[in-house]
């Protein structure tokens, strides 16, 4: 065994791209810009926990991080089978904007994991396996045809670092007093210890996190910390003669940081907005993958006074939020594509009643039930147009896990200040992915001023659909306010009296007023900034969760002297006011999105005469930086 490990470490040296030729053998530390590690195992093996801790400690020592958990669709598939494999990929280092296309190091806790995950390993990357789980019966469960998994998958044995993780875990905890089942459950943490050693992570910090995680079960906490250290020491002792890696840290802004995924960020952004607006937060929701974690997080935040309610269906989720908005709360509803379809009619009511409402759509693969755990950007046109009648509203999109916080905040601000529903599009990729996030100070975000009625309006002939003539926003009177009793509804109203009206000219006037109100939002949103090299022929356009991959590709190319410019949209309806001017500057414009060209067709309608090239992918997977670089290079050279 020692032999094979020594060999594998040689391979580590050979295959991890190092950028420091000046390093001498004697330092035994190799420096890397960035590295991708993928943890995989049975969905019950605790790979998400190991991955999360590895990411968090990497961020804590100054690496930029980006993570992506890849869950199976089945909750608990039979143990050891191919459908039960759970993965967690983390990208650490400097200049990290995505979880990485492929992994430098793959941890595979069983043969099923190895079989399904080997496709995510870079050519020549390193595999760490638990030899204890590669017995004949394990191989059979994972449908191997031979008794040599490594050979069958065509993996070079020199790439493989074989460690008897289960046995070593058992030995480590022999005196712990825990039962065998509990002991074996700690094997993920042994693997984590080993990876911590390999990448020179501070194991003490990981220990703190484990103690915190298992605070209510001190025996388990102690066992995990011991196994962690033993895993680390095992690496250290056995491979004292081989290299470990130092991954480049980024010079990040001072402050307090935490590891944040997109769904939690969305939930927190709403809470932040409710604090700024001085309004209670209400969420009406219904469980749906991959949006449910927003409901989970806000349900827990009763400790901050949040009311998050699981209603009887998607429609009731939206409708209860509309009721809460009418009653004067900051109201939101969270869902994914199929749920947005069900909420359409209710959102139309919010458009007509002109109530503030935040609708969060965490996009997944469609149509219909589609690919619930996979990512796509295929709900854009549904968000823009999926309602009856002329029904304009604001559509915004978040671009990274941390940006979900900002965009949830901004969506709420726009909804409250412009009295309109706002649809916030995120997606499964950024919702479940995480990055290190600096906890903002209270004064870093703007104030929110809902457009309330003023008491003196009662004497000035106030009516419920009276508008601010500049913004076209109607004034918000909330039940409980004396004197402002009024009736809202889904029927068309008279522009002056607010009574029900079927008058043709009045309807045209109200349609125009509702449109003008949304168009005016453009005055309150930030301008686009040109990224990459503005002085290029090619302009890359993206929106929402593809930011990381697009930006990585564009930056990589610019660094290599291939000039590419990029703009990325967080605000889709209305568009930022400088969008057209920027787009018309470029010879070639390519819109990249994880659908069949929805944003491209929308832009083409808004900005006529520009030829929008398209780069589309609808596989339920994010872009890879590699494929983008390849495509953009072709576009430049054509």
């Amino acid at each position, binding site marked *: 065994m020692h032999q094979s490990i020594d060999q594998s470490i040689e391979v580590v040296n050979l295959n991890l791209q190092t950028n420091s030729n000046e390093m001498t053998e004697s330092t035994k530390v190799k420096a890397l810009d960035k590295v991708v590690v993928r943890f995989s195992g049975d969905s019950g093996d605790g790979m998400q926990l190991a991955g999360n801790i590895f990411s968090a400690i990497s961020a804590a020592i100054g690496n930029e991080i980006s993570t992506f958990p890849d869950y199976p669709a089945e909750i608990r598939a039979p143990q050891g089978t191919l459908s039960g494999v759970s993965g967690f990929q983390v990208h650490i280092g400097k200049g990290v904007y995505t979880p990485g296309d492929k992994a430098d190091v793959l941890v595979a806790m069983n043969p099923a994991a190895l079989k399904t995950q080997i496709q995510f390993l870079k050519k020549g990357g390193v595999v760490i396996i638990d030899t204890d789980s590669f017995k004949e019966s394990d191989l059979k469960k994972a449908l191997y045809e031979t008794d040599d998994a490594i050979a069958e998958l065509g993996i070079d044995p020199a790439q493989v670092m074989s460690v008897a993780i289960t046995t070593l875990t058992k030995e480590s905890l022999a005196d712990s007093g825990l039962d065998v089942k509990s002991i074996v459950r700690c094997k993920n943490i042994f693997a984590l210890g080993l990876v911590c050693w390999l990448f020179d992570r501070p194991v003490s910090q990981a220990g703190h*996190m484990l103690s915190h995680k298992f605070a209510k079960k001190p025996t388990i906490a102690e066992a995990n910390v011991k196994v962690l250290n033993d895993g680390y020491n095992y690496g250290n002792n056995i491979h004292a003669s081989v290299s470990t890696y130092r991954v480049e840290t980024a010079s990040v802004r001072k402050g307090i940081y935490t*590891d944040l995924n997109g769904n939690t960020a969305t939930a927190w952004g709403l809470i932040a907005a409710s604090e700024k607006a001085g309004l209670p937060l209400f969420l009406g929701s219904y469980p749906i993958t991959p949006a449910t974690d927003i409901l989970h997080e806000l349900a827990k935040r009763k*400790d901050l006074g949040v009311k998050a309610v699981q209603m009887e269906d998607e429609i009731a989720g939206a409708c209860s939020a509309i009721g809460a908005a009418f009653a004067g709360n900051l109201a939101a509803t969270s869902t994914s594509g199929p749920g947005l379809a069900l909420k359409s009619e209710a959102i139309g009511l919010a458009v007509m009643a002109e109530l503030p409402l935040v609708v969060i759509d965490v996009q997944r693969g469609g149509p219909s039930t589609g690919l619930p755990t996979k990512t796509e950007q295929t709900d854009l046109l549904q968000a823009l147009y999926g309602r009856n009648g002329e029904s304009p509203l604001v559509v915004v999109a978040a671009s990274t896990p941390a940006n979900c916080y900002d965009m949830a905040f901004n969506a709420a601000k726009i909804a409250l200040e412009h009295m309109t529903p706002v649809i916030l599009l995120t997606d499964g990729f950024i919702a479940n992915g995480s990055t290190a996030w600096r906890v903002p100070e209270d004064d870093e975000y703007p104030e929110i001023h809902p457009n309330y009625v003023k008491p003196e309006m009662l004497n000035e002939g106030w009516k419920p659909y009276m508008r601010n003539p500049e913004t076209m926003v109607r004034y918000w009177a909330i039940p409980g*306010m004396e004197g402002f009793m009024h009736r809202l*509804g889904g029927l068309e109203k008279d522009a002056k009296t607010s009574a029900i009206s079927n008058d043709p000219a009045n309807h045209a006037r109200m349609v125009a007023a509702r449109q003008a109100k949304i168009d005016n939002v453009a005055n309150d949103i930030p301008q686009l900034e040109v990224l990459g090299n503005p002085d290029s022929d090619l302009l890359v356009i993206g929106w929402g969760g593809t930011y990381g991959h697009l930006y990585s590709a564009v930056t990589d190319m610019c660094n290599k002297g291939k000039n590419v410019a990029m703009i990325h949209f967080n605000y889709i309806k209305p568009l930022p006011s400088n969008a057209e001017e920027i787009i018309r500057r470029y010879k070639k414009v390519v819109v990249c999105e994880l659908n069949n060209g929805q944003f491209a067709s929308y832009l083409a309608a808004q900005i006529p005469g520009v030829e929008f090239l398209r780069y589309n992918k609808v596989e339920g997977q994010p872009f890879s930086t590699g494929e983008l670089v390849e495509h953009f290079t072709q576009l430049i050279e054509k």
Partner: protein
Amino acid sequence: MEENKKYTAQDYKSDQYVRWCPGCGDHAIVIALQKAMAEVGVPPHQTAVISGIGCSSRLPYYMGTYGFHTIHGRGGAIASGVKMANPELTVWQVSGDGDCLAIGGNHFIHEVRRNIDINILLMNNKIYGLTKGQYSPTTDRGSVTKSSPYGTVEDPFIPAELVFGARGTFFARSLDVEVATTVEVLAAAASHKGASVCEVLQNCVIFNNNIHSYVTDKEVRADRTIHLRHGEKMIFGKDMNRGIVLDGYMLKAVTIGEDGYTIDDVLVHDAKTPNNTLHQMLAMMDGHELPLAIGVIRDVEAPNYTDELTRQVEEVKGKKNFKSLREYILSGDTWEVK
């Protein structure tokens, strides 16, 4: 606001012209609702009336309170959001048999199950009026309507059965022609903490005229209906000499002084008992062998949703005592870059 101001029905009226058909039962019901609100005395600005779609759902426009005429079937879900967001408001939901029991059936059973403090006014005319005469979920089997030209081949819901199936804590019934009884049950609904369902049998003079006349006609009403009142004997009839007794496991209508039955045999109505078996039997009486029950049939105390929600929020907030989101975030896993 003036303290202890006495409100009159007029204070709950809006300036809108009432557009229901002449002779429609809804006219009497909106008057009853305004009277009931005045009787209960919650100020108009602390009252919200929410409706879905249908003739009955036009009602909020005629109220001087806060009101919201929403979309078909969703009144219950929207009213739930209003009440959850601001439990201080008195929330009414106005609905019809189509809106409430067909397209809105799911929201209806769940708001009843949650026992959220909403007063639900269900106007039952056994027909779709606003879409001009299709059968509804309460239309009797065999009825010929525009969408059932050869008669329906399905059984109707009895609204009370749905309420009891959803573990409802309050059910009352009235007739559009009995304004005083409607005021009585609506006021009782408002006093009840929890989901209160008041079914009012209402006549659609255009598409289903006289559908309830078997029990509502003046000449026969006293003999075919019984006004139940908590703690009182279940007696009815023109001469108030008929009573409801228990015969084995079944209810039976008897004449007091005949067949050996005395007033002592007549049941006393107990609306407050948690067991709903007898309430259900009373609510199922249809005016034929047994008189149709009007008045408050069930009015039981139980934990209600909004009080429980508020209590839980306060309890958790008190325990953790975070002043802000930032304070909460800093209590979790963080690290500092100096």
